[in-house]
């Protein structure tokens, strides 16, 4: 029997415009209080607020989304934050409108999270820079659902949108689904490259930055590794590999230029539009997967319900298979 699915993810269906707390003109002027309020609304789980968020997104999506969305990823401890700080400082000086999304891990036990540390950045006061941290919450894949949604809002409002992920892992492919340009940061001494190739992560980046290149010998070795890993490429975009240092500012201008060149490449080859469509689709699929999973779990009475089921029926591993068959028969309704 086929399950009948009736879901309405809040971003899908148009809803009649209701009273908006957010002033669109102020948003478009990059008014940071309004941006923050809009993101608060987007995160809000209460149904009336979700309707409002939807209205806001409807309003915005009729407008251009000029921002270049740049994802910065790489394993923990590689110096992503310092590198992003330098990029932010640099972009802030150009007067471009810059938004930053930083995602930090959530504790699996408490659900709590320690977020951000913008104190490291020297942003000129008055520069149009907006920085928001998100907890990864229950999502694997490097971004939180809220951060995903925030991208679709912010890219209408700024010139550059930087996204810092939790740290690369086998499941961290979200960034490829949301960023126009992905920069992967690795450090010279770690065997990172080999691990990434194994994990299939090397397919993700458009630009590779080897950080902490103040140690030249190690950086040269890592460069050779990475270039070897990329040597069989047949794509139109030759992925640049740069040795950089957030400490000495080595080659940061080149990194900045490479990011801009990639955006130009996307535009002239008309791949940007295609990419943006794929991004929306990926988001939708992600939301659907999450939502169906949540509803399915709820249909069984949530984690507690499953627990009861488990203990009452004294389930075994083969019983889990039976449960999965059962699940496929459930009618999903909202």
């Amino acid at each position, binding site marked *: 029997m086929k399950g009948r699915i009736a879901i309405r993810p809040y971003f899908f269906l148009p809803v009649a415009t209701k009273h908006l707390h957010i002033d669109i003109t102020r948003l478009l002027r990059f008014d940071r209080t309004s941006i923050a309020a809009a993101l608060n609304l987007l995160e809000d789980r209460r149904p009336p607020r979700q309707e409002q968020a939807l209205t806001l997104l409807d309003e915005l999506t009729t407008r251009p989304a000029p921002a270049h969305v740049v994802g910065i990823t790489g394993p923990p401890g590689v110096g992503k934050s310092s590198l992003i700080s330098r990029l932010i400082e640099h972009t802030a000086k150009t007067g471009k409108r810059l938004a930053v999304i930083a995602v930090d891990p959530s504790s699996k036990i*408490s659900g709590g999270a320690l977020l951000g540390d913008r104190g490291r950045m020297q942003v000129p006061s008055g520069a149009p820079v907006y920085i928001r941290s998100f907890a990864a919450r229950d999502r694997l894949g490097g971004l939180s659902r809220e951060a995903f949604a925030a991208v679709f809002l912010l890219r209408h409002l700024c010139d550059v949108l930087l996204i810092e992920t939790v740290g690369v892992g086998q499941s961290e492919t979200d960034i490829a689904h949301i960023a126009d340009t992905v920069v992967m940061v690795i450090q010279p001494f770690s065997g990172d490259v080999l691990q990434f190739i194994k994990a299939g992560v090397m397919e993700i980046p458009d630009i590779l930055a080897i950080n902490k290149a103040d140690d030249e010998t190690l950086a040269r070795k890592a460069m050779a590794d990475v270039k070897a890993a990329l040597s069989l490429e047949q794509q139109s975009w030759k992925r640049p590999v740069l040795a950089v240092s957030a400490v000495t500012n080595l080659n940061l201008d080149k990194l900045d230029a490479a990011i801009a060149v990639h955006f130009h490449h996307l535009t002239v080859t008309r791949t940007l539009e295609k990419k943006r469509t794929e991004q929306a689709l990926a988001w939708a699929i992600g939301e659907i997967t999450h939502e169906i999973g949540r509803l399915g779990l709820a249909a069984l009475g949530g984690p507690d319900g499953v627990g009861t089921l488990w203990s009452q029926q004294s389930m075994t591993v083969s019983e889990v298979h039976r449960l999965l068959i059962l699940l496929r028969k459930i009618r999903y309704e909202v």
Partner: protein
Amino acid sequence: MKKDNPWVMRTYSGHSTAKASNELYRLNLSKGQTGLSVAFDLPTQTGYDSDHELARGEVGKVGVPVGHIGDMETLFSGIPLDKMNTSMTINGTAAWLLALYIAVAERQGVDPKALQGTTQNDIVKEYLSRGTYIFPPEPSLRLTSDTITYTVASVPKWNPINVCSYHLQEAGATPVQEVAFTLCTAIAILDTVKASGKLSAAEFTEAVGRISFFVNSGLRFIEEICKLRVFGQLWDELTRDRYGVTDPKLRRFRYGVQVNSLGLTEAQPENNVPRIVLEALGVTLSKDARCRALQLPTWNEALGLPRPWDQQWSLRIQQILAYETDILDYEDIFEGSKVIEAKTNKLKREAWSEVERVQELGGVISALDYVKEQLVASHTERVRRINAGEQTVVGVNKFTETAPSPLYTGDSSAILKVDEEAERDQLARLQAFRASRNQTEANAALTALRDAAANGDNIMPVSIRCAHAGVTTGEWAQMLRAAFGEFRAPTGIGGAVVTRSTNGQVGERLETLRARVRNSANTLGRPLKVLIGKPGLDGHSNGAEQIAVWCRDAGMEVVYEGIRLTPDQIVSSARDEGVHLIGLSILSGSHLRLVPEVIAGLKAEGLAEVPVVVGGIIPEDDADELRKAGVARVYTPKDFEMLRILSDMVDVAEAAYA
């Protein structure tokens, strides 16, 4: 046998202005104090002039402002420097304050070779605990190295550095960590001096002999006695084996002490007097491990700034110990004690293995993240134990019944209020001083300073020249900021966990609180998000770090912004991040100035609904004033129950958005 000489008796003091502090010093000396211990205000410690934006509200608060040679002359007016033994708690700007001191001596006609005293000058513990650092590690250690190489030749009786264990204990260090991390700092400094190549082998040996220490002493005073013996033994071995010092006299572990402030309580503050006495015993009883200088805090330190009478009481404690008791009459009374020996050996083994671990990580500078995380984790454990009732604090988590105290009625009459006029007075005199100096000479001296910073010449001679030329503290530091850059130390909060157990007093209550935090998302629409920050120049981040760790473990999303933030920075972070609540920590006494600025900033951004809670050493009168200004809750040292504070924060947030 001959009676041992008493230690140098000092009281850490200074406030308002150089003139007011000078009067206080002379009063203290007339009461039998035998040395001076200068407390500088935070702008002076972090290299800002009194009229800098970041100095607002901090001028003259936790110490005396010294902006130029005029202030330094006033501070020591009528005090002949060749007769004085002066300790200066100064670190990021130590080279500069030492230069001012030498310049004042020269103006008094005193030969710098006669100067006695010490500059604290330990930047590592500033990164780890005290927060008045300015520059990154490498140039900071170079400045330290410069002061050492300069004084060895030109101010030979001066102790150019006090490697500090004091602040590590305040940050939560166990005795093992305290000994290990302090010795690692000493290694980093001496290695830098050696590598600078500026000293001959003989001079370097002298330099090793000039290294002194500043140690903490807590209430478990038997263990503290053993800790000091471990320090002595390990320093003796380290200087012999690592630096090849053959003269045992140059290998002696020379140290001064300020006894523990962390354990002093706001509740029943009179109990702090016996605490202070016992802590003093730990560093005076044993002849072989006796301190060279002692400073005692006052009974009311957890309430606010001490008055002259409070300081007198602490001085009298020292005098009674030294002159009435017989502790100076005997050889080391612990010699031959099996118990002391066993405990000492155990601590020594553990401490040395921790030294080796840090050295394997590349030394204390490379291991800064590791060391900071260890300290935060130890402190978290300490707070957990007190909250769980596993560690008794009399009058706080046990024996809390009390008769009304005649010493302290809960108002602000039992502490010193800094005259708010002092800041304006200081600013006026700073501007007059700038106007009166020879600008050409000041500019030339600053250019010479820039050149020395760039080409690696010793920073001291040119700094003394700057002092005479009327360069200000802010100008000196700014020139070096431009040359060296600035630094932000690790927060260390990522590595600490309150408890992994869901049992026991803390574990169970934490579970309940987590459920409350999860449920609050229904009221708030999204998970509870808070910002914890420290406005102003105060770098004592231990409290803020604990709140951040506990909030995270209670399930909140925590934006921790660290130290030295302007009210503007806090408001923009709170706005961008969309936090539900702001927690501010201020220990410098500048709360009445900085907190209302944050609240005004929130209003201006249309964020008037975001509640603000404040923690710090805040007298009751001030707390009233803060609440009137719109602060939702004020927490002081007597609020030790973390889980109650956190649950309170959930209430405040829910009420604000209901």
